[in-house]
């Protein structure tokens, strides 16, 4: 507050000084720039200017050296179309208009910075900023919503800081170039994002303004990572039912009110102290975290995207920072001021004061007092927005963007930028080289493109204990396309507890597996997708001495089984869990209520004390009772003192029944129950043993999977799926062959002759005969020609050989051995050629008559001629 007051005072002072000058521009004077800026400007004299310069030069912009630069000379402009290199007359006109506008503006508001209207593009041609926006609807459904769109832009491009953090850039490249090189500054980011958002129907604008240092440098180290923030649990407020007419009164409270109050007071005091302590600690922490103040606060130029409410069911105006893809409310304190904003149709200058950041701005672009528009005649979004009109707009805008542009008489010219294209590969790879690292406060997030890592890792979040990021607290790794359906691996470094999360589809129906070591019979919890399991197991917990299983939806209503083990008896043989199971001390089983049985016969819990040979049963509680029946069987001895076999003695069963019945007292009933239980005990022990085996198997399987970590490839992924690729290629080959064959068969030997005849008419007999003759004679001619051709070649070859021979005989004496060799090889080759030609000629002579006859035959059989010819012959 104090700072603010100070500022206000200074402001007033400044006003007094320059009252005369400023009287004229009373309206526009309280403009745009945040207070700090104005403060410097208003007292601008020669000395201060120099001082400022010095200050500025002293400021070290914390740009790390490795940050990439996007120099102009690296851009290959040769492939760019002509619209990038020249301006159309309309664009020229627009530029003139913009210049005029700019002149007027600087005349009217001399204290404001020049407008960012027509920076140069990559071909050094000035282009109006609005025409640089190229609304495009991307073919990827993932990019239809603003959040995913912004996320894509922030992932896809690498951030390059502005060459001068205090000025808008001199160049604004087209999205084509930006996408090609995958880097850009905030203006490039915003232009691309805005183009995509307008294309998918949002009412989006590029904003040129001032942002905080963190924002301009994409510095998230003071922000909490969104992934670590736990979603706030919505506290369900239980609707307290109104007390009904006959609700019983609570029993009278006999406690002393005074004592209660005293107690309350005491507790409150303790709590207050605690709170105070906590608060202090928090404050201390906050202080430590707080950034050192930025000397250029309020001067740093930034560009971001504004989305206005209305279209695409956006309920509220909001900002998107293109670097981080985060949305901010328009009141956010990261955004310190707005100079101007533009979309693909118009350009507006902010005429409102930004002394309080952007908090007081009203985004009613139709209001010419607040927003000075550049082009008249284009629709003013807010004022003209009536209900029916907006409805039409909503529908038309996406499809008819281009058309609309043409319709209006003096509109923004059509964008000079080519349609934005992102190849599927690039879209999938997302980040440049498929990898990106973001540093948050006490956290680091790494992202990879799918299939880039051999083990399917796509992102990793490392959380640290301290701000310097040295002590790792926990690591979360997300995986994709893994054959074992592993989705998330969570490692807690402090407790050393690892937790694996699986998607549905694991061969053992695993859902969650948390463990400290992969050794069997250690502490671990495994959760299952119970619907994928036949036995309805939900969860199995293991400690060195116990195993607990939870079930759901079984036909025998079992819900819980707990087994206690004794340490394994040492055997001389090599002992493993499989061959030597641990002895079971106790098995506890619990059951859900079976509605088909009466409660006093439905067992709720049974405990097999294996070592003591005791069985305890506890039944379900009847609805109108508070105490459940129970029964305990003891097996004292098999043989009584006289050596007779004991079947059942009354003291072998201790029973408590809530409502004693006759038949349960009978020894026969008890005996039968006992026999049944003995059988069940055996089964349960077997079950426990099987569960142990299964655990071993799961662990083995997990280890194997971890080692192999094969990735699945969708059958629709034609690039990666080798099998489908082969198949497709084979199919293509087959197709091509078939096509060739078809072409061959379709070659019509009559076509050249039929063409001479009037088309569409039926052939007369005479015509048919003539056709046939012509065809045959033509063929004969061809055969003769061919024969002649071969003959001619043969003769030519022979002559040449003779010539050579002659030459050889003449010069035989003078020839070098090399020449001789040359001659000899030539001779042998020529002889070979001559022989082949001779053979071909002979063969042709043999085959020609046959071919001729075959053609005649074929012509006879030809459906077009056959009948006529038959009649003729």
């Amino acid at each position, binding site marked *: 507050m104090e700072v603010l007051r100070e500022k206000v005072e200074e402001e007033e002072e400044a006003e007094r000084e320059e009252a005369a000058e400023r009287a004229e521009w009373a309206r526009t004077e309280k403009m745009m720039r945040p207070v700090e800026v104005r403060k410097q400007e208003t007292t601008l004299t020669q000395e201060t200017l120099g001082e400022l310069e010095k200050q500025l030069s002293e400021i070290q912009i914390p740009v790390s050296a490795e940050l990439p630069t996007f120099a102009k000379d690296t851009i290959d402009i040769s492939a760019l179309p002509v619209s990038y290199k020249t301006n159309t007359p309309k664009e020229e006109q627009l530029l003139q208009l913009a210049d005029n506008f700019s002149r007027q503006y600087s005349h009217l508001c001399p204290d404001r910075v020049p407008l960012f209207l027509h920076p140069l593009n990559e071909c050094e041609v000035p282009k109006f900023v609005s025409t640089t926006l190229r609304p495009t609807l991307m073919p990827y459904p993932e990019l239809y919503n603003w959040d995913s769109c912004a996320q894509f832009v922030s992932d896809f491009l690498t951030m390059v800081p502005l060459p001068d953090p205090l000025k808008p850039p001199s160049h604004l490249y087209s999205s084509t170039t930006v996408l090609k090189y995958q880097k850009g500054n905030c203006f490039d980011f915003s232009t691309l994002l805005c183009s995509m958002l307008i294309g998918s129907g949002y009412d989006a604008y590029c904003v040129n303004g001032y942002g905080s240092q963190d924002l301009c440098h994409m510095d998230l180290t003071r922000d909490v990572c969104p992934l670590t923030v736990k979603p706030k649990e919505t506290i369900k407020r239980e609707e307290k039912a109104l007390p009904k*007419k*006959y*609700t019983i009164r609570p*029993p009278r409270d006999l406690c002393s009110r005074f004592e209660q109050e005293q107690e309350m007071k005491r507790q409150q005091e303790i709590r207050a102290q605690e709170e105070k302590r906590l608060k202090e600690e928090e404050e201390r922490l906050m202080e430590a975290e707080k950034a050192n103040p930025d000397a250029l606060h309020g001067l740093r130029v930034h560009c971001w995207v504004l989305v206005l409410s209305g279209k695409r069911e956006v309920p509220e105006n909001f900002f998107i920072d293109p670097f981080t893809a985060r949305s901010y409310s328009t009141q956010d304190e990261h955004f310190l001021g707005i100079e101007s904003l533009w979309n693909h149709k118009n350009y507006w200058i902010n005429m409102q004061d930004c002394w309080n950041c952007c908090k007081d701005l009203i985004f009613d672009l139709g209001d010419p007092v607040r927003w000075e528009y550049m082009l008249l005649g284009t629709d003013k979004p807010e004022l003209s927005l009536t209900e029916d009109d907006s409805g039409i707009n909503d529908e038309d805008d996406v499809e008819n963007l281009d058309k609309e542009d043409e319709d209006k008489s003096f509109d923004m010219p059509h964008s000079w930028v080519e349609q934005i294209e992102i190849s599927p590969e690039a879209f999938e790879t997302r980040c440049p080289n498929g990898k990106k690292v973001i540093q948050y406060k006490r956290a680091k997030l790494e992202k990879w493109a799918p299939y880039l890592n051999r083990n399917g890792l796509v992102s990793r979040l490392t959380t640290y204990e301290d701000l310097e990021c040295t002590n790792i607290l926990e690591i979360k790794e997300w995986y994709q396309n893994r054959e074992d359906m592993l989705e998330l691996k969570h490692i807690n470094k402090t407790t050393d507890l690892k937790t694996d999360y699986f998607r549905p589809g694991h061969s053992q129906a695993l859902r969650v597996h948390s463990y400290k070591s992969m050794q069997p019979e250690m502490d671990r919890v495994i959760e299952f997708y119970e619907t994928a399991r036949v036995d309805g197991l939900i969860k199995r917990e293991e400690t060195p001495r116990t195993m607990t299983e939870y079930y759901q939806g079984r036909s025998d209503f079992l819900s819980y089984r707990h087994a206690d083990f004794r340490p394994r008896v040492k055997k001389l043989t090599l002992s493993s869990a499989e061959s030597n199971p641990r002895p079971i001390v106790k098995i506890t089983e619990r059951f859900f209520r079976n509605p088909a049985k009466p409660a006093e016969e439905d067992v709720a819990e049974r405990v097999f004390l294996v070592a003591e040979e005791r069985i305890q049963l506890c039944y379900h509680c009847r609805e*109108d*009772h508070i105490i459940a029946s129970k029964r305990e069987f003891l097996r004292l001895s098999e043989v009584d003192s006289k050596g007779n076999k004991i079947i059942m003695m009354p003291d072998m069963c201790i029973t408590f029944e*809530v409502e004693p019945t*006759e038949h349960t007292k009978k*020894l026969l009933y008890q005996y039968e129950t006992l026999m049944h239980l003995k059988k069940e005990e055996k089964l349960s022990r077997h079950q426990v043993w099987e569960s142990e085996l299964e655990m071993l198997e799961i662990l083995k399987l997990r280890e194997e999977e971890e080692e192999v970590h094969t990735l699945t490839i969708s059958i629709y992924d034609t690039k990666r799926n080798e099998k489908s690729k082969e198949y497709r290629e084979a199919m293509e080959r087959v197709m091509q062959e078939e096509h060739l064959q078809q072409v061959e068969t379709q070659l019509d030997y009559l076509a050249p002759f039929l063409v001479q005849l009037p088309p569409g008419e039926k052939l007369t007999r005479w015509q048919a005969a003539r056709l046939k003759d012509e065809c045959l004679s033509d063929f004969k001619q061809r055969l003769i020609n061919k024969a002649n051709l071969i003959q001619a070649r043969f003769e030519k070859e022979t002559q040449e050989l003779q010539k050579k021979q002659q030459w050889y005989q003449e010069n035989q004496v003078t020839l070098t051995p090399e020449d001789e060799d040359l001659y000899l090889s030539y001779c042998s080759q020529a002889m070979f050629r001559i022989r082949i030609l001779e053979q071909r000629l002979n063969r042709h002579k043999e085959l020609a008559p046959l071919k001729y006859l075959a053609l005649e035959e074929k012509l006879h059989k030809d459906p077009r001629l056959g009948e006529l010819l038959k009649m003729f012959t």
Partner: protein
Amino acid sequence: MNRLYDSMEPRVIDDDMLKLAVGEQSSQEETGELAKQEGILFKDVLSLQLDFRNILHIDNLWQFENLRKLQLDNNVIEKIEGLENLTHLVWLDLSFNNIETIEGLDTLVNLEDLSLFNNRISNIDSLDALVKLQVLSLGNNQIDNMMNIIYLRQFRCLRMLSLSGNPISEVEDYKMFICAYLPDLVYLDFRRIDDHTKEVAEAKHHYSIEELKHRENLMQARLEEEQVRREELERHKTAFVEHLNGSFLFDSMYAEDSEGNKLSSLPGVSELLEAYRDKFVIICVNIFEYGLKQQEKWKTELDTFNECVHEAIQENQEQGKRKIAKFKEKHLMSLSAIREELEMPNIEKMILECSTDISELFDALMMLEMQLVEQLEETISMFERNIVNLVGLFIENVQSLMAQCRDLENHHHEKLLEISISTLEKAVKGDLDEDLSEDVRALFVDKDTIVNAVGASHDIHLLKIDNREDELVTRINSWCTRLVDKIHRDEIMRNRKRVKEISLYIDHMKSELDNLEYSDILD
């Protein structure tokens, strides 16, 4: 029936025979021994076999309450009797007996399988109660009328029927007829009916079956209508205003009133009567509607009350359960501690602790229960007050409406008297209408007669109205008292049960502790 046992003396089922039969059935190794040691209660027996025993008379079976399967085949039984108590019976075999009529099966609603093979039955009936019947064996009997088949149509679950060896099975159309009229049947005479036969049979008897179906549907519709009407009336009865939604009361007033009827033929009386009737009916309908509305009120009142009481009891039970669970945990711990403890004085101390724990639990549970009793008592008395008030209000209103009825009647009476007297005057003058009947003329002899006649009619009417009113008031009052009584009784029952439950548990815990003590001392 010429059988081997004919020479033997016919017998009656008696206790000895039953014991023997039961004993024979359950002789299997260890369980048998145990059973012998203890003896078997007849009501635990699920199946009983009494074949080839020359039984003539069924008796002494009433103890077998839970019997599921009873075999009485190959005896000389002539009459089905003594099976009334065996309501759980599923399987009954009476084949190879001398039964002539089917009877005494009306209580066996769970019966699924009934065999009456080889008897002397000539007519299928008295099976209406056996709605679950699936298998019916009636072979080798003397059934000779095809209409018996139609009787079997009412058994929706019937899947197997055997009728071979009856006179009707000789009929040429026998199989087709049965297949057509019993389409759900799967087996006939131990053979599966194939689909083809079914189709043919249906085609053959199509028309007659359609007709039958139509008749059955009509009957069904009538029954349903009747049911609806009865339910409606029942509803009105619970509101105590039955028959008040029309002229029923008015008509009943004139039903026994001969004088009134006679007088209605006087000139001018019929119009009067018409107007009177209209007004009367309107008041009746008012009472009726008011009654229904009030009934709704009572019902919601009762429902909220029940709900609240239920909630309170549930809550209390939950508290009790929690207490017990907590106690159990602690108790188990201390018991095992006692078992492991070696020093005698320590054991004694711990046992003492345990018993104090038990008594504490007892106190706590009883306290909870007493608290609930108090709370419920309060609520119940509140409900009682409210319901009595409501009923009182209802009675008051009805009475005032009834008074209106009486006023109407009085008014009507006066008018009638006027007309009568004027008619009498005419009669005295001698210019009475000609078309009056002799009976009516007889009334106009002198003034006393006519006044008496009109008075008698009036008295009858008033009496009727009074009666209706009294009936209504007494019935609603008795309903009210019964309701309140029931609520009190239920509450007392609940309380007794809970107290019993608690004390039983406490006793059990104590005895367990005592046993422990005892065994420790022994050790």
